[in-house]
């Protein structure tokens, strides 16, 4: 470390060129393998493909791929966004109380519980999903329990099952997404809850604020950054995911946008179409994130 002992604001120091030297390798890596490929992908999305059977393409400023992405893959886009949105909301509803419990009620067991929450990370994502196949199967534990409790009719009426099946339904896909992304929602919420100064909650109680109001006025607003981060970490990967749809869904629910990109790329070799779908997906996600950030921002001010 170069020594430079002039005192500086926020404890940070003036390292002259050192910090730039430190970030250089990382920036170079990100530039070559992230920025350049995205530009390449964008160029391909504006190309057309002269020969149907060969992967080669010509760059022609052809915006047609983008309109085709909406017309040909509109339903896949909508389906992916709806599944991801429902799964994200469910994740938040399940993760918040869990994070709250770990942050405020777990006491000395806090780290054990946090470790347990992380445990799914150390089991294969695919095997967890395959485990849901076993659990939701026609002869699996969930349905046989429901049957022995004579709940079959009720589940069907609530549209939880379709023709007496749980596996290969849209609900199974959403359940799988919710399950697999839950830790990504939970950890950021936990981090923001943990930072809250308990004295604020005590102060509110001393001033006779009922718990509901303290939660609404103090705890919830202070944890919003965590909810925001968790939503992004859940929603964004969930929209592009096709593994849950593939392993838990039926032929209709399998048609999500991630699967479309994959087949266009790896099976159809139609790179321009696939590139355009990718950018449509990214554009829509960015737009939604901006709107969501604005929405939360105004909420904070109110």
């Amino acid at each position, binding site marked *: 470390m170069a020594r430079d002992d002039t005192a500086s604001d926020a404890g940070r*120091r003036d*390292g002259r060129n050192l910090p730039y030297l430190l*970030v250089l390798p990382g920036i170079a890596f990100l530039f070559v*393998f992230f920025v350049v490929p995205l530009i390449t992908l964008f160029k391909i999305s504006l190309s057309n493909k002269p020969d149907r059977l060969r992967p080669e393409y010509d760059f022609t400023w052809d915006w047609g791929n983008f309109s085709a992405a909406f017309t040909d893959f509109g339903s896949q886009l909508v389906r992916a966004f709806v599944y991801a949105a429902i799964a994200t909301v469910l994740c938040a509803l399940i993760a918040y109380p869990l994070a709250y419990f770990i942050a405020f009620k777990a006491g000395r067991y806090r780290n054990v519980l946090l470790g347990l929450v992380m445990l*799914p*990370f150390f089991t294969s994502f695919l095997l967890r999903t395959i485990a849901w196949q076993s659990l939701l199967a026609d002869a699996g534990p969930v349905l046989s329990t429901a049957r022995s409790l004579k709940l079959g009719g009720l589940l069907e009426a609530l549209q939880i099952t379709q023709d007496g099946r749980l596996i290969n339904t849209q609900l199974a896909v959403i359940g799988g997404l919710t399950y697999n992304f839950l830790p990504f929602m939970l950890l950021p919420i936990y981090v923001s809850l943990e930072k809250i100064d308990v004295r604020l909650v005590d102060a509110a109680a001393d001033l006779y604020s009922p718990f509901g109001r303290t939660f609404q006025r103090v705890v919830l607003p202070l944890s919003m950054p965590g909810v925001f981060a968790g939503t992004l970490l859940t929603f964004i*990967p969930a929209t592009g995911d096709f593994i849950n749809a593939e392993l838990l869904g039926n032929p209709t629910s399998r048609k999500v946008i991630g699967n479309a990109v994959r087949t266009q790329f790896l099976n159809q070799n139609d790179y321009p179409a696939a590139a355009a779908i990718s950018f449509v997906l990214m554009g829509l996600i960015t737009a939604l994130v901006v709107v969501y950030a604005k929405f939360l921002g105004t909420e904070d001010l109110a």
Partner: protein
Amino acid sequence: MTRRPLATWLLYAVTFLGFAYLFVPLITIAVFTFNKPKGRFNTAWQSFTFDNWRHAFQQSDYLTAFGKSIQVALIACVIATFLGGLMALAISRYKMKGGPALDLLLILPLTTPEIVMGASLFTLFFNQSVRRGFWTIVIAHTLFCVSFVALTVKARLRGLDWSLEDAAADLGSPPLRTFRKITFPMIVPGISAAFMLSLALSIDDYIITSFVAGNVSTFPREVFDSSKITIPPQVHVIATLIMLIAVVTIVASTLAGLRRESRLKG
């Protein structure tokens, strides 16, 4: 907060259900290691057996693939931790220009859907006629771990007291010794946590890998690509073994933490 038994009771119930939801599939995986499947799919319970554990390492394709996953993860995460750690250190310790732009460059890879990242890397390798295989997987995994490491470490470094370094220097410690004795121990918990998590991310990745792997098979690839044809019980055994290692690590580190705590108190 003790005057609200109903709300507290509800919170306990929801927490219990939440943990049950998290664990039921993990327990299912462990239970199915003792299943004797009829046919090629270990997804429906038939009868109890120890055979899968006895012949745990018989499915050599899955083992080879798992070995590949470990190799990729170790190489990619070491590189990513190095690159990302340096970036985090620079951002949180020094005054520098272009901070917001750098933050954006770090956040973008995390907000790009995996499928888009995989697709873009695929086109890069296709255009440069790079043969896809082991090293392209390593590059891809390094890519999604770099940002992750940089942002995690940055969050952990915020609020560290850098004036300790000045104190060491005032006491006549040479710069390298200060780094070894003060700076490094301060930053190491954040860096090792980020390293562990990126290992988990790398070992588990299927989507990006499927675009850049060529004909090299990683564990998730082997499982997913053959999941329509066969799911042998040995796959469950491998997963359970990894889970056991994780549980033992968590328990051990918690116990160590508790012991440290009681030593400090006593």
